[in-house]
């Protein structure tokens, strides 16, 4: 159990380090595409060396995954950024090459398409890593550990270049940074994570771990460093919750991790500070009062200048002319009173000196009191 969790956790870290790259370049489904494209490499490797379970198959898989990702990346450039179209073209091609070869060459062995496509976390620990006869744990964990260490090292060395590459490669080129190299690096890094963790997890869970934690990060932060950290953390949490769930209810582990990733993403969507939906609902009410208060402040000042405040600036006048409810007028006036911007005098709302200055600054488009204009709620990223 612990070993399965370890494999899952290392995969989650690997996915957490590459997921943001895919997410920010809008190609999360590269995970799915690459994991299907490996079939071409498996097919060709099997054709050349027809033994099931040979390391050649895995090498072929890795190579063809890289190849597919590279072709897709180049094609995306040619199609001016349409990554979905490029992937849609490349991945069926590679998949069908593999499927055809396997159908012809491997029809009489038990190597079939289904087997290649469904990873199995439960049995991933069966393959052991042995050194001089001692059992050092599951092979899959060592593979992922190696990849995670390599990713961390590369990320550390090319951290600033990676930011340029993700945001504005043209600027990176102008600064003389090796953007073409970074493109290769990103392709190799993402495909190696995909190929190796897909071995253990299968393509669906892989995509869930690439997308879900990254989406959590969208709602939690607007800086790139924390973005990566949040993704890794959410991925680890998904694996922890998923394996826990699977243990408790005796379920399929991959399935429960996928479910956990989805639930955690959903939870963040609802609960995240600033961008989360619950937060925004809570905010909406406060924002509405702030907005009404500002309306009132500007409105009463205008009529004080005109001189018809006796008829306009009463509760009824304000309610009818500004199309507000009585409660809203009361709440807005209270907001102004609390800040000494206006007072009720003989049933008329009268602005104070500070209130006049406040109204003037609002009319000039400056909003000095607590930052934001009411009603304007910060919009999260375009994912909404």
């Amino acid at each position, binding site marked *: 159990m612990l070993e399965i969790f370890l494999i899952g956790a290392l995969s989650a870290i690997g996915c957490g380090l590459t997921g943001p790259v895919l997410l*920010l370049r*809008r190609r999360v489904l590269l995970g799915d595409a690459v994991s299907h494209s490996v079939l071409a490499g498996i097919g060709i490797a099997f054709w050349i060396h027809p033994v099931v379970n040979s390391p050649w198959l895995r090498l072929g898989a890795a190579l063809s995954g890289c190849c597919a990702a590279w072709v897709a990346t180049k094609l995306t450039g040619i199609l001016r*950024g349409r990554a979905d179209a490029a992937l849609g073209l490349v991945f069926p091609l590679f998949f069908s090459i593999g499927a055809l070869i396997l159908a012809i060459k491997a029809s009489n062995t038990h190597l079939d398409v289904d087997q290649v496509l469904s990873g199995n976390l439960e049995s991933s620990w069966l393959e052991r890593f042995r050194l001089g006869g001692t059992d050092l744990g599951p092979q899959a964990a060592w593979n992922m550990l190696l990849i995670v260490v390599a990713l961390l090292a590369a990320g*550390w*060395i*090319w*951290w*600033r*270049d990676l*930011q*340029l590459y*993700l*945001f*504005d490669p*043209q*600027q*990176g*080129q*102008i*600064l*003389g*940074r090796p953007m073409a190299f970074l493109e290769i690096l990103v392709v190799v890094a993402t495909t190696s994570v995909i190929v190796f963790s897909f071995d253990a997890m299968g393509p669906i869970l892989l995509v869930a771990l690439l997308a879900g934690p990254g989406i959590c*990060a*969208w709602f939690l*932060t*607007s*800086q*790139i460093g924390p*973005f990566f950290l949040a993704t890794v953390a959410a991925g680890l949490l998904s694996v922890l919750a998923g394996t826990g769930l699977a243990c408790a209810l005796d379920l399929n582990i991959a399935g429960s991790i996928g479910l956990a990733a989805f639930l955690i993403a959903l939870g963040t969507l609802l609960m995240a500070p600033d961008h989360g939906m619950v937060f925004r609902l809570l905010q909406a009410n406060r924002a509405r009062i702030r907005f009404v208060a500002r309306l009132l402040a500007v409105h009463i000042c205008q009529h004080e200048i005109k001189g018809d405040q006796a008829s306009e600036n009463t509760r009824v006048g304000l309610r009818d002319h500004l199309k507000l409810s009585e409660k809203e007028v009361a709440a807005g006036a209270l907001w102004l009173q609390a800040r000494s911007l206006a007072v009720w005098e003989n049933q008329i709302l009268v602005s104070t000196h500070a209130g006049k200055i406040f109204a003037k600054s609002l009319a000039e488009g400056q909003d000095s009191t607590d930052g934001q204009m009411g009603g304007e709620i*910060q*919009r999260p*990223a*375009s*994912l909404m």
Partner: protein
Amino acid sequence: MAKEPLPPAEAVVRLEDVTVAYGDRPALWDVDLEIPKGSLTAVVGPNGAGKTTLMKTMLGLLKPATGRIEILGESLAHSKGKVAFVPQRSSVDWDYPATVGDLALMGTHGSLPWWKPVGKEEKRRAREALEMVDLVGLADRPINQLSGGQQQRAFLARALSQDAPLLVLDEPFQGIDASTERAILDLFRNLRRMGRSLIVVHHDLHTVRDLFDFSVLLNVRVVAAGPTESTLNEENLRATYGPRLGLDPRRAPHGPYDGARP
């Protein structure tokens, strides 16, 4: 409004016989051009004249079919990072998780080896750049919450924080309000005074005449290039834009530039 005298003619950019083509259709024909160091240079010409193409070629983003390019006396390969650029249209994804401060800091990314973290010096440069474009107040704002003009100014800040001796700006005033435009034009003149060279693609011929000391008139070929007084005349403008355009102050959209902030 007196203009400073031109510094001694040393070239910041030198192009010899440069032809740039998209496919087999040349956008720039046989360009010979020498832009003096320390000048505030305007590149003017009609839409499709090849101005953006010229800028991108100088930056090494486009490969010329023929010709030689030198930046500050060095070939393009050796002048990386010495030119800062504000593009005309940028296809970046504004949902990228970064704040305005992070964006300004990106200009300094070229000058640090990988093992050094961003230090005080880089932060100071980014902050100064934000001050110059009047965005310090928004330094912590995520970039996806900026208006179009603020985005443009954030890009300007990124170029400024690069601390490059040559700044290339492709129509930097698109979507920028009149008072900010004047503030930025003042900033350009200050930078020039501090010894930087600027090349600006700009469409308002009146500010070009009043503010820029060197002009390049471009329409696929270089029609004329030289000090603005002697270059920006009726004859050359007609040769660049066709017969219907003149430099008539009565039709000035903004009136002559008086150098003062409103």
